[in-house]
């Protein structure tokens, strides 16, 4: 209700290697603990495989690998954020999912020049909140598959 009045939007905040990222809460379906993931052959390494999410087979992306950050072993705090975008439902593996916060529209700065790392191309903007720097992710770009290779397929 309130967000229609102001330009505040609720965001889910999560961490990847000391940095904090945010996705709009309305794109987030649920947050799950890590479970058995079935590997899918012949896709990019950042697609870890598929997971049974209450009967729905859901693809899982390891965001660390997507952003070319080194992989770490999953811990108790590792979470899978299930996001839906454009008819797609995908899980994102993150180090931890901390909390939900409001970000005012004016706190968002569009061009993240300072960030200058590999994930730059997936970023929508950055938000400064007190002393925290939140990186707002562009789901559309994250979910773009650049791996549609046809390694074996030469069949019609």
């Amino acid at each position: 209700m309130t967000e229609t009045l102001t330009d505040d939007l609720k965001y889910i905040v999560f961490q990847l290697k000391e940095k904090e990222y945010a996705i709009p809460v309305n794109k987030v379906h649920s947050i799950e603990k890590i479970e058995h993931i079935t590997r899918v052959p012949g896709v990019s390494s950042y697609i870890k495989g598929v997971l049974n999410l209450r009967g729905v087979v859901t693809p899982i992306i390891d965001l660390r690998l997507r952003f070319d950050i080194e992989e770490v072993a999953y811990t108790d705090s590792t979470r899978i954020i299930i996001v839906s975008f454009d008819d797609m439902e995908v899980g994102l593996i993150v180090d931890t999912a901390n909390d939900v916060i409001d970000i005012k529209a004016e706190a968002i700065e569009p061009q993240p020049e300072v960030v200058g790392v590999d994930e730059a191309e997936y970023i929508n903007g950055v938000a400064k909140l007190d002393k925290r720097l939140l990186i707002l992710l562009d789901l559309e770009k994250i979910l773009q598959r650049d791996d549609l290779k046809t390694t074996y397929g030469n069949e019609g």
Partner: protein
Amino acid sequence: MEMNQYLEVFIEESKEHLQSCNERLLDLEKNPEDMNIVNDIFRSAHTLKGMSATMGYEDLASLTHQMENVLDAIRNHKLSVSPELLDIVFQATDDLEAMVFSIADGGDGKRDVKEVVEKLKLIEKGESPSQSSAKSEVAATATAIAPASAKAKSNYDEFEYTVLQQSKEQGFEAFEITIALREDCLLKAARVYMVFEVLEKVGEVIKSTPSVDQLEEEQFDQEFTVSIVSKESLEDLQKMVMKVSEVEKVEVVTISLDGDRSNQEEIVEEVIVDEVAKISSTDSSSEEQKKSATTSTTTKQPNNKTIRVNIERLDILLNLFEELVIDRGRLEQISNDLKNQELHETVERMSRITGDLQNIILNMRMVPVETVFNRFPRMVRQLARDLGKKVNLEIIGAETELDRTVIDEIGDPLVHLIRNALDHGLETPEVRRANGKNEEGSVVLKAFHSGNHVFIEIDDDGAGINRRKVLEKAIKNGIISEQTAATLSDKEVFDLIFASGFSTADKISDVSGRGVGLDVVKNTIESLGGSISIDSKEGKGSTFSIQLPLTLSIISVMLVEIAKEKFAVPLSSIIETAIVKKDEILNAHNQKVIDFRGKVVPLLFLKDIFEVPSQGEGDDFYSVVIVRKGDKMAGLVVDSFIGQQEVVLKSLGNYLTNVFAISGATILGDGQVALIVDCNALIK
């Protein structure tokens, strides 16, 4: 919201009525003298007219009205049924169908129906409609006459007037109810809806001012007027409507008709009343009689109570249910470990119930093939006329049920095969007579269950497939060589017509394709996990037999293990499994092959294809699953077989499309996902 509710009902019912019109019209063609059929059609048309007028679809209403007039004339023996007449009526139903579909797609249901209406008018006047299509001047004169018959009637148009008139003759009273809502009424549309609900219980609403959709959108002040036919008294109606809250004032007025209708109309009425009497005489209670009298005009199928559920919701239900099944598995495990008798019994009971539940849920997705078949009689009729052939189509087993997803896909291939049978299979009446056959060719469309499959057969008693012609064509088109041609069995020859770039018809007609069709048919059916075969005797006819899986959502698979990963191979593509010694493997052109029952079968190592991370070499034996795609075979090398299982097929979602050699996924008893191997992609 409410408008949608009405609209959906309207569309569904209209479709039903149109379907029954179509069916009965075909019956009528066979028995032109049977007045019961005419009555049935009349009633369907009549209801359709009423409904569309209420919904404000005027083109629809005016066309049905005209159609009704023609039917009426037939009923009164003023006209006799001729193929030309039926052609026009069919054309009218086609137009009606197009309009209803346009409404269903969110259109306004408008369509230029003048031509058909004119033709119907001409028929009604006993003139030959073929003249009108040839000479437009005749049509012009007809239009000149037409307005004379259309008399202006207070604020009711002709259809509404007829409805009022007819109801009156059936002992219904017509009322005009003016309802005023309180000024502080907030949900006017909701109140309107409640009023309509009340009124529809006691009678039939004929007209409302403003129209229903305007009312739904609250485009009125405080008052609106509804015309209704009912057997209730004036006072009762008033009381009933007053019970709806926030209604301030109700005025009920009896509508008097100046009743100067031709006696023709009355005869019509007698027929309807007779019908009603027949129906009601079977019911014992007077209450029932009353009901049947009110509903007889709307002809609803009474024993067909269904609700429409979005298929997505069913999928969600199925998903949740599967979760339950997985938990059940865990529970069974726990109860086995605990060895508690009571727990054990409870779990056992639960297992049985969930089993039943699963069957029910899966059955909900099943739809009778009738939904596909029922459009064929029309199509065959039209086609037969176009081709100048005489055809009798027989449909057997229309109640056979198939999974919804299969139903959606099977229509086009069937259309193609039937067209094929009519165009290429059946001969012209002259040829048939010369060959000592009945002039009328017969096409039988048959569906039946057998085991886990549904079979659909299309059987014609036409010329059959000419082996020599097929071979000639195949050789000419470079599909086979002359040497192989001699060695082929009849069956193999027939299969050639499924090869792409093949057409046996000497002439290309626009009825069945240009030889691009049958291979598409075959592909579609195979993509559904089915198969198609032909049996034919020259001079006697051909049978196309399609085998389809009962459902697409559940398939039988062989679970196999590669390192620690589990994969499922569809049983439909497995020929058999084998254990092969390492030293039995041969090398041919850099390809490892085995000699399997005298055939050379290439081996595919799934471990490499699926890049399974594994440690070290296995033992001296390979476990091989022999799979096929058409005539080609391949051996899939896996680490071990787990066993056969029925699994629920799931897609990988919209994100993971185009994964090589994986056609989907399934969830195993332990809650893990196993991928389903697409054997067709593995065999080139």
